């Protein structure tokens, strides 16, 4: 017994000829259908190239526009010719001109010989397929489609809409349960002849003529009525991308294809000389009884589709520039923003770097320059420390920094003295962990040696900026994890907030903080705030500092590291 190959061709006829010869020389009769739109000389060349082979036939030509009845009609005619001409054929294998046999023909014949009554055809009910393009699944069978999807898309879409609105439904022939599946199948003589010679065929054909993409449903539906043993999978390895067009195989897929153990792959790039050479002229022996195993190839293509539809989170690049809130992650990884900490702790950055196991930056958004960890001139990705370049596009600056330092958590200082344009971006970024000690900006002012009039003006300005930032952080749109402590509460008991912040940065550390950063000396700070009030400026962000807070009479413990037992 042998296997008959039906080849549907419309382009790259030289490759089709090569493949047809390969099958035919190994005792598999071939029937070729050539699209009627192929020019006469090209058809004649194909015909001449195969004229020396006795078991190659050409069937009546139809126009095979994608998604139309022509492909089914071509398949029917070619199969009928196959069954009538080659009596020894038991299985008929439907392939296209751009298919390539990956395993020796004998192995496939042997495989089918062991399964003489099995029909290999993917056949799934419409409810269960997830791959239809354009949202037409069951409606393929109940609407009319007189317009070409490729050339008359506007009319196609409008006509579908119109039919939906008026509630038009075609009647499905009785006894027919619509199924769909891959166009490429392998059916037994019994099944195929039962379909082709059915007394109801004129009626069935009339119905399917107006079905959308009948090549994916005609045989898939009818096989359920006549076959005794349907194996619902295709022997042809064929993957589709998110637009519903087949993935193409190139020379560099050689090893993947070899190891897939599939019998036939679609679709091969016509100029993939290495593949054609490897599988046709130097066809070796595979593992004789191996089942097809396309897992690796499936994964490769699934990943490709995912990259096209979801992309890499946090990456902005020339071909990925998501609309706001479509980013699937504004930034790549979590990062921590500290506001006020370096104002009240004298060695906060080195301390943070040590306990969090990372390099802590200074004020990245400072007006004079970008203060990278270690005051570097450039950072990962050759990110420069120029404040002008950063201010030109602060968003790109931050996403770049997080992207460039993949695998290492970023921590940096922020404050009302910094450039504020980035505030909304960070507040709406779920990756941001923003910890704020409100009013801490007053401590450097308190320590400064400036005239009090300037200090007062500066304090009023910073307070206004910080209030604005806080209102952003508290807005209902904010998605960052935000913690806010007034300065007075924080200095009362700094360890608990510090512990909670550090726990979030390195949740697996599990140990209690043993060393706190050095709190700066706040002696006289309460009086300083009172002085601001006396000058007519109301500091509201520091919380409740009594006017004698930090006066020399207090315990005298200030300025020493906290020790936790």
């Amino acid at each position, binding site marked *: 017994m042998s296997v008959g190959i039906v080849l549907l061709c419309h382009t790259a006829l030289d490759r089709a000829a090569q493949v047809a010869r390969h099958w035919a020389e190994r005792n598999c009769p071939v029937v070729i259908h050539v699209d009627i739109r192929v020019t006469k000389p090209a058809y004649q060349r194909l015909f001449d190239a195969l004229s020396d082979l006795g078991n190659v036939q050409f069937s009546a030509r139809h126009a095979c526009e994608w998604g139309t009845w022509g492909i089914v009609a071509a398949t029917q005619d070619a199969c009928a010719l196959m069954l009538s001409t080659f009596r020894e054929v038991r299985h008929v294998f439907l392939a296209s001109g751009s298919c390539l046999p990956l395993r020796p023909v004998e192995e496939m014949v042997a495989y089918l010989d062991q399964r003489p009554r099995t029909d290999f055809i993917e056949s799934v009910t419409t409810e269960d397929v997830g791959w239809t393009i354009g949202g037409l699944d069951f409606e393929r069978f109940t609407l009319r489609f007189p317009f070409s999807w490729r050339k008359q898309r506007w009319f196609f879409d409008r006509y579908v809409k119109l039919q939906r609105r008026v509630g038009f439904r075609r009647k499905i022939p009785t006894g027919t349960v619509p199924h769909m599946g891959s166009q490429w199948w392998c059916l037994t003589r019994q099944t195929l002849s039962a379909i082709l010679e059915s007394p109801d065929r004129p009626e069935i054909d009339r119905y399917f003529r107006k079905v959308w993409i009948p090549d994916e449903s005609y045989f898939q539906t009818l096989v359920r009525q006549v076959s005794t043993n349907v194996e619902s999978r295709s022997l042809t390895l064929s993957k589709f991308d998110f637009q519903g067009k087949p993935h193409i195989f190139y*020379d560099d897929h050689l090893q993947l294809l070899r190891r897939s153990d599939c019998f036939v792959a679609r679709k091969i790039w016509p100029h993939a000389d290495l593949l054609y050479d490897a599988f046709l002229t130097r066809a070796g022996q595979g593992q004789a009884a191996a089942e097809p195993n396309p897992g690796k190839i499936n994964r490769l293509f699934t990943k490709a589709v995912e990259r096209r539809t*979801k992309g*890499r989170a946090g990456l902005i690049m*020339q071909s990925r*520039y998501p609309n706001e809130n479509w980013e699937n992650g504004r930034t790549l990884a979590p990062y921590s923003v500290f506001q006020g900490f370096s104002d009240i702790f004298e060695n906060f950055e080195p301390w943070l770097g040590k306990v969090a196991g990372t390099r802590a930056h200074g004020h990245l958004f400072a007006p004079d320059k970008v203060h990278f960890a270690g005051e570097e001139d450039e950072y990962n990705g*050759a990110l420069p420390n120029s404040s002008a370049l950063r201010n030109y596009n602060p968003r790109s600056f931050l996403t770049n920094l997080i992207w460039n330092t993949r695998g290492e958590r970023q921590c940096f200082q922020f404050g009302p003295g910094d450039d504020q344009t980035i505030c909304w971006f960070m507040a709406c970024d779920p990756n941001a962990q923003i910890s704020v000690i409100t009013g801490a900006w007053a401590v450097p002012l308190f320590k400064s040696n400036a005239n009090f009039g300037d200090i007062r003006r500066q304090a009023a300005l910073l307070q206004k900026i910080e209030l604005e930032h806080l209102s952003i952080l508290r807005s209902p749109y904010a998605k960052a994890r935000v913690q806010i402590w007034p300065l007075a509460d924080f200095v009362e008991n700094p360890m608990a907030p510090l512990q909670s912040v550090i726990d979030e940065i390195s949740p697996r550390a599990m140990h209690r903080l043993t060393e706190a950063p050095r709190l700066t000396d706040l002696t006289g700070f309460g009086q300083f705030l009172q002085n601001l009030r006396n000058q007519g400026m109301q500091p509201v962000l520091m919380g409740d500092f009594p006017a004698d807070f930090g006066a020399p009479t207090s315990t005298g413990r200030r300025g020493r590291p906290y020790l936790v037992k």
Partner: protein
Amino acid sequence: MSLISRYKLRLARKRWLIRAFRKRHELRPVVLRTGQIAPSDMLIFTTMRNERVRLPFFLKYYRDLGVNHFLIVDNDSDDGSREYLAEQDDVSLWTTKHSYKRSRFGVDWLNWLQRKYADGHWTLVVDPDEFFVYPFCDTRPLRALTDWLDASSIKSFSAMLLDMYPKGPFDVMPYHEGQNPFEIVQYFDSGNYSFIRNSKFGNLWIQGGPRARMFFANNPERAPALNKIPLVKWSRKYAYVSSTHMLLPRGLNQVFDVWGGEKASGCLLHAKFLDTFAAKAEEEMRRHQHYANSHEYRAYREALAVEPDLWCKFSEKYINWRQLEILGLMSKGNWA
């Protein structure tokens, strides 16, 4: 986008095409082999001036990718470039003594040649120091990419300009004719690019890299644009607006995905910073033929006075396209 602004863009496109038509007399053919161009051929369009030493490698690089024909405008070279190109079998050559600046830096000339010869062809518009890198370029010829783009109904393909530079001053290693320039300029900046969307033309405006870092750190908006759309399935109705940064109709500029996914894209490796650069900058300053009053070259000349080193310890050494893909500078999209 309102009907009126769409119509304005249409008028702008027509205007560029008319301008290209008027400028056609400035081009004097030297050797025309355009009769050889077959309907499915891939074409390269370029303008150049005094690039003799670069040309052999340039031609070889693109021939190896599978480009079939080069259409080149020579802007009054005097170093033998013209004679060299005239001898090549797959080059059609025009020459002009007219102003580069007044042809909008060659765009008008090339728009005309493309309108005349490129209709229906995949065309690549690159300078002699730009080398196109695309996904799988080490295993698949350019034709594989264009076939895939055709099958996916994609008409334009983005390739960001990636400035390559040596370690140390530019003139430490002299460039020899025929040499791969990336043996000398091996380094690039991997992650300091700024992306802004241009709502009028719908393209992305990309700036950054070593030039922004070294020459425009205090003047970022003047840093050169790096967004390029060099590979287009050309139609005689299309027109480049400004270099290859953007085209009309504006749909061709939509080379990026806005729903979070990645479209396929490549890079143009830019071998500008060879030892030839100082002389070039000097000459261009004298000729005043470059963009926006040659401010770019002015910035270079000032910086060149102190022998700049673009290299820093975070510079990335070029390996292959896969490295650029992993770094997020280009993408395979759904091509696998």
